[in-house]
C-alpha cells in the first residue's frame, strides 16, 4: 500500500489550522471586542423601547373642583421617506385633521421625521390608524384641558404641546405636576409586533401630584363676571381683583381682565400681555390706598395725639411742585381719622412730615414693599421702593399718598390684610397642598408671618377705614347690615417712556369686612376707567364682590366698630 504524501497532509493540516485560527480570531473579535456593540445592535433589532408618559397631575380649587386635567391624545407623525404618495396621503389626512390638504402636504415634503399634527383626539387618531397610510404613525401623548375655560386663566397658566407648563401655576409647579415618565421594553418580531412570550420590561410611570389651590371656583367666577362688567361700565382698559383670607393668607380669588382661554392659548400668541397675571407681576403706583401705611406709622409711633387737628388747605407748594387735594375745599381742621376718611393728600402730607422719611421708609419695607411677597408665582414683581437716602424733596410728600412708589396689587392687598389681621402680615398663598399617588393631602406649611404694627394700631386703623366707608370717600362700598372698612385710591399713571404723569388713572378700592372680625379682604383695581375716582369706579365693584362673598363664605355681620377719635362728622 502506498503511503500518503506526508508533505501534502502537512500543508492541508497547516491550512486547516490557519483557517481554524482565523475563525477563532474572528470569534474573539466578535465575542470580546465587538461584543457590546453587537449586543446593542441585536437588542435594537429585537427590543422595542417606548416611553410611557406620566399622567400630569390635576389642579383643583379649594373644594376639590377640577380646574385643569390631562387627557390621552396622539401626536401624528410621518417618516417622510416612507411616504409613497404624498399628495394622496395629504388628501386623506386633511379632512380628518380638519385642515387644508396643502397644510399637510407642506409637512410631508423633505425627508426624515416630522409631526403632522400634535395632541389630536384619540377618536381622530383611530380614524387615521385605520387608513394604514405608509410612513404615518401615532405617538401617545397627553393634552391639558381646562374645563372652566377662561376661569382663572392667568393664575393657572397653560401647558405647551410638549407637556411642559409655560406660565402660571402650571409653570410654578411643573416638577410636581409632571410626575416621572416610564418606559416599556418589549421584544418584537421582524414586523414589529410584540412577541407574546418575549422579553417585556416595564418601568411604570409615576403620575404627577394633584395641586390643590386656595381658590374658590364659584367665587372666582362671580369675581370675574363682576370685573368684566365693571370694566365695561367704566370703559376701562382692564382690571384686577384679589380676594384674600387675612388670617391664613389664602387667595380665594384672583382675577385679571382681559382674560383668555388656556384651552386655546395659541390664539393669543400675538398678545402675551394677556397671559400675565397682573395681580402679581405688574407694579402700579398705589395712590391713596397707601395712606393707610402713612397713618399706621403715625399711630404706631405715636407721632402725635390722635385728637390732634391739622390745618389742611386744598393745595400746597413743595419745591417747584404744587400738590392739591382731589377737590377744591376751604381750609379745614382735620384729625388723622378725617384725613384718611376724606382722603386728603395735603392732610396726609402733614402727617408724613410729623412722621419723617426714615420711619415711613422703614414701615413701607415692613409692610412688604420693594420685595416679592414670597408667593413664588412666575414673574412676581417686587415693586419699586427707593432707599430713603435716594429720596428727593418731593418723595416724602408724594409717597405719603401713594405716588412715587410702585407695588403689585397683591402687595397692596397684603397691607390691608395686615390691618385686618390685627397688625400681623401673613404671606399670601395660592396652594393649600398637593395630593400624591397615595391619595393623601400633603398640606402646604402655614404661611410665614411677621408683626408689622401692634394690635392697637390695627384696631385704630380699622376704625378709620370703617369711617372712610361710612362718611368718607368710600361710601359706594357700603353694604347694608355689614360694616365695611376700606380705602379708595385714585393714582395717576406715569408716562411709560418719559418722566412725569399722564392724565390716565388707576382707580382702586381695597377693604375688608366685617370690620370687627374681618373674614375677607378684597382689592379691586380698574385701569384707566372713564370715571377716574376709586370711590366711584372701584368701590361699587368691591361692593358687588363683597355681597357675593358674604353668601358664599357665610360671613356673619359682626359687631360695629366705633368711629376714630375726634372724628369731625
Amino acid at each position, binding site marked *: 500500500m502506498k503511503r500518503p504524501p506526508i508533505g501534502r497532509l502537512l500543508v492541508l493540516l497547516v491550512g486547516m489550522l490557519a483557517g481554524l485560527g482565523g475563525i477563532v480570531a474572528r470569534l474573539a473579535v466578535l465575542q470580546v471586542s465587538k461584543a457590546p456593540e453587537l449586543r446593542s445592535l441585536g437588542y435594537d433589532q429585537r427590543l422595542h423601547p417606548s416611553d410611557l408618559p406620566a399622567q400630569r397631575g390635576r389642579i383643583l380649587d379649594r373644594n376639590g373642583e377640577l380646574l385643569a386635567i390631562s*387627557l390621552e391624545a396622539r401626536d401624528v407623525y410621518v417618516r417622510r421617506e416612507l411616504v409613497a404618495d404624498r399628495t394622496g396621503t395629504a388628501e386623506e389626512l386633511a379632512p380628518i385633521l380638519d385642515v387644508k390638504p396643502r397644510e399637510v402636504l407642506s409637512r410631508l415634503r423633505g425627508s426624515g421625521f416630522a409631526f403632522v399634527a400634535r395632541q389630536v383626539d384619540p377618536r381622530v387618531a383611530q380614524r387615521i390608524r385605520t387608513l394604514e397610510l405608509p410612513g404615518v404613525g401615532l405617538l401617545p401623548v397627553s393634552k391639558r384641558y381646562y374645563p372652566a375655560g377662561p376661569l382663572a386663566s392667568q393664575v393657572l397658566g397653560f401647558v405647551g404641546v410638549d407637556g411642559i407648563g409655560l406660565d402660571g401655576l402650571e409653570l410654578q409647579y411643573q416638577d410636581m405636576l409632571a410626575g416621572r415618565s416610564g418606559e416599556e421594553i418589549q421584544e418584537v418580531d421582524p414586523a414589529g409586533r410584540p412577541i*407574546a412570550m418575549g422579553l417585556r420590561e416595564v418601568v411604570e410611570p409615576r403620575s404627577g401630584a394633584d395641586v390643590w389651590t386656595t381658590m374658590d371656583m364659584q367665587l372666582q367666577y362671580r369675581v370675574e363676571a363682576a370685573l368684566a362688567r365693571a370694566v365695561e361700565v367704566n370703559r376701562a382698559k382692564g382690571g384686577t381683583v384679589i380676594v384674600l383670607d387675612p388670617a391664613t393668607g389664602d387667595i380665594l380669588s384672583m382675577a385679571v381682565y382681559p382674560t383668555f382661554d388656556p384651552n386655546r392659548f395659541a390664539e393669543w400668541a400675538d398678545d402675551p400681555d394677556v397671559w400675565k397675571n397682573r395681580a402679581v407681576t405688574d407694579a402700579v403706583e398705589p395712590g391713596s390706598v397707601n395712606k393707610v401705611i402713612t397713618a399706621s406709622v403715625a399711630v404706631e409711633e405715636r407721632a402725635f395725639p390722635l385728637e390732634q387737628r391739622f390745618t389742611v388747605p386744598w393745595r400746597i407748594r413743595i419745591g417747584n411742585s404744587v400738590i392739591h387735594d382731589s377737590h377744591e375745599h376751604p381750609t379745614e381742621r382735620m384729625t388723622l381719622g378725617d384725613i384718611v376718611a376724606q382722603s386728603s393728600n395735603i392732610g396726609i402730607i402733614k402727617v408724613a412730615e410729623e412722621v419723617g422719611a426714615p420711619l415711613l421708609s422703614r414701615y413701607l419695607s415692613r409692610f412688604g414693599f420693594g420685595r416679592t411677597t414670597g408667593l413664588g408665582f412666575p414673574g412676581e414683581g417686587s415693586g419699586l421702593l427707593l432707599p430713603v437716602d435716594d429720596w428727593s424733596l418731593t418723595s416724602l410728600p408724594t409717597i405719603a399718598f401713594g405716588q412715587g412708589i410702585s407695588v403689585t396689587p397683591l402687595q397692596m392687598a397684603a397691607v390691608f390684610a395686615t390691618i385686618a389681621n390685627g397688625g400681623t402680615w401673613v404671606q399670601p398663598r395660592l396652594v393649600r397642598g398637593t395630593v400624591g399617588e397615595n391619595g393623601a393631602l400633603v398640606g402646604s406649611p402655614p404661611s410665614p408671618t411677621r408683626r408689622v404694627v401692634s394690635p392697637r394700631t390695627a384696631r385704630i386703623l380699622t376704625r378709620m377705614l370703617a369711617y372712610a366707608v361710612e362718611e368718607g370717600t368710600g361710601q359706594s362700598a357700603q353694604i*347694608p347690615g355689614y360694616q365695611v372698612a376700606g380705602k379708595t385710591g385714585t393714582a395717576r399713571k406715569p408716562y411709560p417712556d418719559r418722566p412725569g404723569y399722564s392724565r390716565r388713572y388707576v382707580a382702586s378700592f381695597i377693604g375688608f369686612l366685617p370690620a370687627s372680625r374681618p373674614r375677607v379682604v378684597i382689592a379691586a383695581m380698574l385701569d384707566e376707567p372713564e370715571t377716574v375716582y376709586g370711590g366711584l369706579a372701584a368701590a361699587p365693584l368691591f361692593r358687588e364682590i363683597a355681597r357675593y362673598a358674604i353668601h358664599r363664605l357665610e360671613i356673619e355681620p359682626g359687631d360695629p366698630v366705633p368711629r376714630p377719635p375726634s372724628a369731625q362728622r
Partner: protein
Amino acid sequence: MPEGPSSPLPKGKLSGRRRNRHHVGFAVLLGTILTLMVIAIVTLNALLAQASFRLQELERTISGLSERQLALEYGVARLSSPGRLAEWASDHGMELPGPGQVHLLRVGEARGSGE
C-alpha cells in the same frame, strides 16, 4: 434422519427475543412519555402565551377605563363649570338674584325640652 422431539431453542436466542420485546416496550414507553412531555410543554406554553395575551388585553382595558374615567371627570367638570351653568340658566330665562334678594338662614341647634 428421524425427527426427534423438537429440541428447545438455544437459551441465548430465547433471551435475545425477550430482550428485544423488552426493548420495544421500553421504546414505546419512552416515546409515550416524551410525547406526553412535549404535549404538556406545548400546552403549557400555549396556556402561558394565552395568559400573556389576556394580561396585555386586561392592561389595555384598565388603561382604557382609567382614561375613560378621566374623560368623564373632565366632562362632568366642563358641564358643571359656573360659566356654562350661568349661560344655560340665562338661555332658559333665569337670572341672578339682585342685592338683598337672597337671605341665608342659619339653623341652630334645637332648643327646649321637647315635651
